[in-house]
């Protein structure tokens, strides 16, 4: 195997660590230099390992090269400053300051601090996710563009603007004060959750990339849990939620990469290991007196990992959706709540509430109505499915709706 596989792998795991440490050392002013040095390090590795073979400790080798490149940069910088500002005299202590600390502890601290800096409310959510993918997850520009279903130029521009903004606002790379943690965690968790959703719900056909996005989100969340300062109940709730969702990763796509609806999934493909992990973190989330949206969503996700179609299951899901919608209205939550209502209290009750939702620009609304009318008024059901079909955005959605139409046409009554 060797370096052909090894270098991309190391790039994925080590690039972000080197960038985080160097960025923190240089500040956002010199962020591009940090990225350049990290990239050059891998270029050097490719050249050198091709001739001399892979060293015994590849990661350590990379750190050493990055360290030397960074020191050279700082040194050059110092000399440059010395020349234009002759009153500054370099002495021994300056060289001490130039040490680049790539110890596991400092790598971890730097990544955590970067997380808070990159998820700063001063920049747009899209940019936060983009920067996180680049800086915290080591994604290539093309991969980020694929994840956002857009071009490399758009992403490059977006990242450039975001970096400028971070400089303008003089955002420092550090952990927030303990008193500010709760507030500053909010956008960090939002970014992590969006990152996860990007992978979980994106229409991209690239399954490997999608899975990778989800795993990265879970990794970042785990880092927050591993740090005492940021190990808060809502962080555990978010990780729990992501574990529960991720447990269905294998079951929700068929051999052709088509989406398999929850009801039709092979439950044997559900990952029990992730389900128990989800349970563990949900348990850890129980402390504190604040019920976050992640707690409620984790509760909903927990019940979705329960295979038995009981009344208790749907009553519980309904109650969580009731609470979730009071914290934050989301059309998809309103639709899912109404579906849970139909499972808990019957289709008649649910139809009455469904018609009040008024989400007439949302094709999932018509899908829900079609579902609710199935078996009650199949003609109405069919009309709603047809409407959903005419509004559906992707081919795979259209195929799934088409199946529903066929089914309702030939089902009894």
């Amino acid at each position, binding site marked *: 195997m060797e370096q052909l596989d090894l270098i991309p792998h190391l790039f994925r795991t080590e690039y972000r660590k080197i960038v985080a440490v160097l960025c923190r050392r240089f500040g956002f002013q010199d962020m591009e230099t940090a990225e350049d040095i990290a990239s050059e390090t891998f270029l050097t590795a490719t050249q050198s390992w091709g001739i001399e073979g892979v060293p015994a400790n590849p990661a350590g080798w990379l750190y050493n090269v990055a360290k030397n490149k960074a020191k050279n940069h700082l040194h050059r910088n110092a000399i440059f400053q010395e020349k234009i500002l002759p009153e500054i005299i370099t002495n021994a202590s300056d060289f001490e300051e130039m040490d680049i600390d790539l110890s596991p502890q400092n790598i971890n601290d730097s990544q955590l601090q970067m997380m808070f800096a990159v998820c700063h409310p001063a920049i747009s959510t899209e940019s936060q996710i983009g920067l996180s993918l680049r800086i915290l997850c080591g994604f290539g520009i093309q991969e980020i563009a694929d994840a956002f279903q857009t071009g490399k130029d758009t992403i490059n521009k977006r990242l450039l603007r975001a970096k400028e903004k971070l400089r303008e606002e003089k955002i420092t790379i550090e952990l927030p004060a303990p008193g500010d943690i709760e507030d500053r965690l909010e956008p960090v968790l939002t970014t992590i959750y969006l990152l996860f959703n990007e992978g979980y719900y994106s229409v991209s056909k690239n399954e490997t990339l999608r899975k990778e996005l989800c795993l990265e989100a879970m990794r970042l969340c785990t880092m927050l849990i591993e740090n005492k300062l940021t190990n808060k109940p809502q962080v555990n709730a978010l990780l729990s939620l992501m574990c529960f969702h991720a447990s269905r990763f294998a079951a929700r796509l068929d051999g052709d990469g088509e989406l398999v609806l929850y009801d039709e999934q092979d439950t044997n493909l559900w990952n029990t290991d992730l389900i128990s992990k989800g349970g563990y973190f949900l348990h850890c989330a129980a402390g504190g007196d604040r019920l976050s949206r992640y707690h409620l969503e984790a509760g909903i996700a927990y019940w979705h990992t329960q295979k038995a179609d009981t009344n208790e299951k749907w*009553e519980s899901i309904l109650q969580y*959706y009731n*609470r979730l919608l009071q914290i934050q209205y989301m059309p998809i939550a*309103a639709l899912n709540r109404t579906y849970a209502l139909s499972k808990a209290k019957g289709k008649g009750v649910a139809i009455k*509430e469904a018609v*009040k939702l008024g989400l007439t620009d949302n094709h999932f609304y018509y899908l829900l109505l079609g579902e609710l009318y199935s078996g009650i008024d199949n003609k109405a059901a069919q009309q709603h499915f047809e409407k959903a079909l005419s509004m559906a955005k992707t081919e795979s959605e259209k195929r799934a709706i088409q199946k529903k139409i066929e089914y309702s046409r030939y089902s009894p009554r």
Partner: protein
Amino acid sequence: MDEYIIFMRLDLLTKDAQPSPEQMQDYMKQYQDWVGGIAAQNKFSGGKGLSVEGKVLKYGDVVTDGPFVEIKESIAGFIIVKAASLEEATELASACPILNGPGNSVEIRKISALHQQQ
């Protein structure tokens, strides 16, 4: 859209009228289903339940403990909804499950902009 406050009044004090813990759990579910239905229409603005602990101050330095009890029913809580008209707000309020109890009532009032938020 305007905001309307829905006050819920029920008998909080008569011992015999108080629900058992099991009943209470069931009532809370019904209540959450009602509010959840309003929130699913994106018409929920906020709300709070109230403890029976309280004070009433009146003209002439009169201070009494507990909620206002000139009538048997006192305010148990309120929610604020978004609605296009008083009629719509009344329609939302009409499904409030506390109306299943005799003597209970809800009162719907339009919120006027006396304390404008910044």
